């Protein structure tokens, strides 16, 4: 009897080991896994002091093309889904200022332009979010940008000086982009 019981236990354990398995699994779900993180960092910062503005005759006191290859990196251009560039403009000079930002491709064609107009100090900081992608401007602008042209125009005089310490026009910017990694 005991021997029979032992054999029965062994058979049951063996049967359990052989037949035990799992609930239904669907490994094809991995295809539905979406990985689309958003990354954020600063892009560029430009500061032009009022003393410099006063030294330059004419309206257009500053124009410069800057190489900007960050957006052209293949890793970025192949995966970018959407983005927002945030600009922050601060004017502590005694003059109204206009800033023009032009996005240029490799052939220096203008892809897009952002224009900021600021009253003379005292004035609030101007902040603008520019979206790219499905809810904003074309992503191709970003993907093909190779240079950024910055133009600053003095809409005031060349003699006055602000009483604020270290008067200047300051442009700050940061970008937030969503990438499709899978």
């Amino acid at each position, binding site marked *: 009897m005991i021997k029979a019981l*032992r054999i029965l236990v062994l058979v049951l*354990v063996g049967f*359990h*080991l052989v*037949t*035990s*398995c*799992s*609930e*239904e*699994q*669907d*490994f094809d*779900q*991995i295809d*539905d*896994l*979406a*990985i689309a*993180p*958003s*990354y*954020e*960092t*600063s*892009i*560029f*910062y*430009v*500061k*032009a*002091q009022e*003393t*410099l503005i006063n030294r330059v005759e004419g309206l257009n006191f*500053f124009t*410069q093309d*800057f*190489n*900007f*290859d*960050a957006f052209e990196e293949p890793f970025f251009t192949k995966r970018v889904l959407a983005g927002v560039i*945030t600009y*922050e403009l601060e004017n502590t000079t005694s003059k109204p200022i206009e800033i023009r930002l032009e996005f240029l491709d490799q052939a220096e064609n203008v892809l897009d332009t952002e224009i900021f107009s600021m009253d003379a100090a005292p004035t609030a900081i101007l902040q603008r979010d520019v979206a790219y992608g499905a809810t904003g401007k074309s992503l191709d602008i970003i993907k093909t940008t190779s240079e950024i042209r910055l133009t600053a125009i003095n809409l005031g005089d060349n003699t006055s000086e602000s009483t604020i310490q270290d008067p200047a026009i300051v442009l*700050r*910017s*940061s970008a*937030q982009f*969503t*990438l499709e*990694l899978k």
Partner: protein
Amino acid sequence: MRIRHCLLIAGILLTLGLTAQNKQILYDFNEIPQSLSINPGVEADFEWYAGVPLLSGISAYGGSNAISINDIFANDGVDINIKFRERALNVLTPKDELSTTIQLEYLNGGFRSNDPNIFYSFGGYVEFDNIGYWPQDYAYLLYDGNAGQLGRRYDLGDLKVRGSMVNVFHFGINKKVDRSLTLGARGKLYSAIADYSSSTNNGHLRNVEGQNNRIATNLNADLLLRTSGLRSLRNANNDDSLSNEIIGRALFGGDLGLGVDVGFTYHLSERTTITGSLLDVGFIYHSGDAKSYSLNGNATVEGIEIDVLENFASLDRDFWQELVDEIEQIVPFDTDTKGYISFRPTKLYASIRNDFGEPVGNGSSQNCDCTAGSYDGGPLRTKYRNSYGGQLYMINRPRGPQLALTGFYTRRIGNALALKGTYTIDKFSKTNVGLGMNLQAGPFNFYAMADNLLSYNNIAATNYASFQFGLNIISWGRK
């Protein structure tokens, strides 16, 4: 369909992660010759034994202490993105591990010396061993990114992985010092096929409010990945000669190392026994095909910064390229081919055992001299039908020692069959019940063991699974 699922899940479990497994069922199961491999000081009463090549010992283990296959891949209609976030991303921590060990013994044998108190064993096995911890902050960076996380510190030290594929040759001596004490030691020669390790990382990535610009991004990195053999294997794979390369590196063509195992068995009384062993105290020097990658430095950037007044004379400069060059200089990404030493994951076993019940073979059909200590007409050490006791297991891991405690009961049924049941508690499971069986049919010895049996009704939901089996030919004949 069920079998297909079994195989698929087993395959994934076995490829999850790296470290040596706890062989708590095999430990001190001294009817099985392979118990010598985890305690060279076990009481071996064989005259000789020979493992059947490639079948004498196969063991595999895969596990994660905090997530299972079922958590993510169950066909339950829930979006995998929700499951991944709720059951992995928001739950797992850098202390949670994914690990795998596969060991294939291709040669194992032993024979008694002219001195009947000395038993020699020898053999070889290939071991693939991998351990990785959940890289929590890397996962957040990969899955969510760092947008809108001003001030959050992403810990780059979360990356800790280690893995190797090693061919091991070993030769051991087991000596019965007296009726109560048996000692053993085994020397090991490692021939590493491949190795990688990235377990000393430090640093962080953080966005904070900038001094000039909107955001300052701070990268503080001290990252190191060391590899050996991977380039050779990749090149061989491209040349369709991968098998030859693996065999060549396994047979002393790779990186070499030395190690030692030691162990003992001591009878405190007629029925109470303590044992202990220390395994894989050794190292491998990787020199032939070593390549290391490092990223080291501390940089804070706020994008391209142009002060027109300061840079008025040089505004035509390429500010973007200067920024890239500056970062690469401050936080250089370097590679080198200097050799390095890796230490084997050292393991410690200890046990206390109490025997009770009738002596094995007492008035029964014993047909072999398989009572411990019976060779050469020496004093007999009686085996009993039942044993119970406790075992301790520790292994050295990248995040510190890992511990497992086991309670066991062994039942010997005649001389042909022995069963060992275990209950183990460790970081993987608190319901780990295991069962091992040793079957002796004449000179043929077959053993099989598996643990975490309670999970077998849904193996995909388990955090841990392992099995071992083997086939030997054993002789107890007296010299």
